[in-house]
């Protein structure tokens, strides 16, 4: 039998036939772009502070509110204004600061969170905006910048760790524009080995359990043969994609050990009750579990339900209370486990939604003035940064674009935002371009 990873005390982990990696789909997700983009594993030299951060085990959970939530129904309500929508606002634990009445739990812990109410970006379509807000830069073909998750997996993770360093939890394999994004090149110039392991929906952790009719000896022999042939092929064909492919095999070997960590049914029922019953909540619980057990970056998405061009209020009545509860529970658990100081939690979508309603009861895409929240590692809690005008139409003070946001995120994690990628034959790229400054007021 393969040796399973011993889980942390939060759950009794056992193998489960329903939670196994579907290798073909896994390869689809992880290998996408590997053939077209070179792997530059190791080219990003680790400065001393990054090594220090690695020792500290910094990590990140991104609650990716794909489709883009309404700032009016979450962090930036406008009571009494024509743009407000039907939901009221409630006072938070921070004097003078209100949030949507759909967020009563977060209102009580707003002093643990930091909210930016003045996000202002320039991409109005999902695919481009998701790309922008997960990589920190617009595309510059033919070069592909790695996602935040890939950067952190490379900086803080260990390739030989059996637990995947970058995990995407999402039950929805499609999702229109998000589907195209998911099929894209996640790790960019870092190489496919820093791409995510995907789990959720049709993405099961399956085909990593050694069949009963395959002995350990036979399994080892087959792997030795595959490795031999691979090395021979690599020697004859010095292609980055071959390296990436081999890295994937190494990861599958790790997954064979880590598969039980993905068994949601093995997590304590009390935890499932607190986070569930919806998939988004359960996947957030799983993210906590994976982070506890060695993952570096876990991105929790749920299709793109926030894209409420129709039924904005009718959909937010359900989604926001779930988000409210899940954020509350996650921060509570990370704090209780003394993990919040080393774990950055990001809560955001790709833009906001229009102040005005369309004819279909919906709010449309709106990058001009929107909100996001964060908490934990390196972030000063209880700060409400920036503001929009009385109707939420435009940013009134302290606009924040994706570069300043990413500079702040990297700085909070102890990474140099201006570090250059030393890529042979490439232009000079920085983690954050144009010397965009981190937001000092948000840094602990």
């Amino acid at each position, binding site marked *: 039998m393969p040796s399973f990873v011993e889980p942390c005390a939060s759950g009794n982990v056992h193998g489960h036939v329903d939670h196994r990696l579907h290798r073909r789909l896994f390869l689809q997700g992880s290998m996408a772009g590997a053939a077209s983009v070179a792997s530059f594993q190791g080219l990003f030299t680790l400065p001393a502070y990054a090594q220090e951060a690695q020792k500290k085990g910094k990590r990140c959970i991104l609650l990716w509110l794909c*489709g883009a939530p309404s700032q009016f129904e979450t962090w930036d309500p406008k009571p009494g204004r*024509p*743009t407000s929508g*039907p*939901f*009221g606002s409630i006072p938070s634990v921070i004097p003078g600061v209100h949030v949507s009445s759909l967020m009563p739990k977060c209102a009580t812990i707003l002093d643990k969170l930091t909210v930016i109410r003045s996000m202002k970006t320039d991409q109005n379509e999902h695919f481009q905006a998701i790309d922008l807000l997960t990589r920190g830069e617009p595309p510059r073909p033919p070069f592909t910048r790695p996602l935040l998750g890939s950067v952190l997996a490379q900086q803080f993770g260990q390739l030989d760790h059996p637990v995947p360093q970058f995990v995407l939890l999402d*039950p*929805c394999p*499609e*999702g*229109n524009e*998000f*589907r195209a994004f998911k099929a894209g090149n996640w790790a960019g110039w870092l190489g496919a080995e820093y791409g995510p392991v995907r789990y959720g929906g049709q993405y099961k952790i399956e085909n990593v359990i050694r069949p009963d009719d395959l002995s350990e000896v036979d399994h080892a022999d087959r792997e030795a043969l595959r490795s031999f042939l691979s090395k021979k092929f690599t020697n004859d064909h010095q292609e980055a994609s071959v390296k990436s492919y081999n890295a994937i095999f190494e990861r599958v070997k790790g997954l064979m050990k880590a598969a039980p960590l993905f068994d949601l049914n093995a997590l304590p029922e009390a935890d499932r009750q607190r986070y*569930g*019953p*919806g*998939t988004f*909540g*359960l996947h957030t619980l799983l993210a906590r579990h994976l982070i506890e057990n060695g993952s570096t970056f876990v991105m929790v998405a*749920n*299709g*793109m*339900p926030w*894209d*409420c*061009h*129709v*039924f904005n209020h*009718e*959909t937010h*009545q*359900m*989604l926001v*209370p*779930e988000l409210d509860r899940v954020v509350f529970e996650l921060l509570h658990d990370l704090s209780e486990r003394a993990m919040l100081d080393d774990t950055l939690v990001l809560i955001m979508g790709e833009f906001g939604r229009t*102040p*005005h*309603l*369309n*004819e*279909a*009861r*919906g709010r449309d895409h709106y990058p001009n003035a929107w909100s996001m929240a964060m908490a934990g590692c390196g972030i000063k809690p209880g700060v409400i940064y920036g503001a929009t005008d009385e*109707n939420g*139409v435009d940013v009134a003070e302290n606009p924040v674009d994706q570069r300043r946001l990413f500079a702040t995120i990297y700085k909070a994690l102890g990474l140099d935002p201006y570090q250059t990628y030393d890529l042979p034959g490439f232009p000079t790229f920085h983690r954050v371009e144009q010397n965009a400054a981190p937001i000092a007021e948000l840094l602990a």
Partner: protein
Amino acid sequence: MKLELKKTGRYSFPMGLLDFCLPANVQRAYAACMDGIYALDLPPADNNRDKPVPKRIGGHDSYVSSIALSANNTTLYSAAYDGRVHSRAINESTSDSVEPTWNEAIHSFWSWQMVLSPDEKWLASVTGQYLAGAEDYTPQPSSEATVKLMDAVQGKVIHAWNMLPSVQCVTIDPSSKYVAAANLMGDVAVYEIETGREVATWRTKSFTSWGIIKSHCYIGGIFALMFSPDSATLYVTGMGDMRDPMAGNGKQLWQRFDWKKSPPEKIQESHADDTGEGLMEALAFHPSGKYFAMGGRLRGGNWNVGFFDSDSGRLIGQAKTGMRITTIRFSADGQNVFFGGMQGQPGLKDGKFPDFGYLERFAITEAGDV
């Protein structure tokens, strides 16, 4: 029979109009709007020069979702997304703000819809917040009753029934003996007012979407229902099934049920070649009972208000209004039909948000065969 419609008036309101009601002489309209309750004096004809201006005569703490008027034009009922039902004493010239004579907290969440019974004894209101109740986002059962019947004099709750949230529409039959309600999941229930018994319940799956792409949750449901004039059958409409719940492209669809059969039986529905796409959220029978109207938002096709022969179910008239219709009312004499609703909310212009709620009046002419 074929219907021809001619627009004879169009009147604007500051914000979206979610419901309206008319006295028998149709010289006024009372509107439930996102920002309050309005009275509008209706001229006999629209001269496009002296447009009447709606007067705000009351409000709630959130969108006003429903409004109803007593036959003697002296009591105006309203319900809102603040979960409250108000009663106001008014007269035919009320144009200032009027405080409610009673103001009852009926629900802890929205009143999605409220109706007055034809005999004016009862008010029925429905509520329910859609919260995730399972991994697949099946709605969580409500902790409070989602269908309530009140006496119209004092607003006291007489009956409280529980349907799965969100219960989005309610109606009372012409005999004032039965209440019917329907929800997000396509559940329909009929309750007997005298006994409080649930006398029929069934589910039609034609109006609800679960997102197999984009979002794994339920969206849509039934948004309007009405009894036939003889109370024997029940019509429902809403957002037809969509593969992508965020597309808004559900089929324009009505279904008619014989609710007294056990189990209730679907006996008629709109013909596919008569309909297009878009959320339908209004139903109304013509006073003659010969035909009815269904209206809402046009997403694809030729019309956003269709008129259907009550026997054949075929389309006999149509209108394309360029707005989302939330309510349809026929004048008591059957010669006019009114549509209330809204266009998309415009952006700020010169520091103000332009009007986007509308009430439109059309004259009906019955022509020859279709």
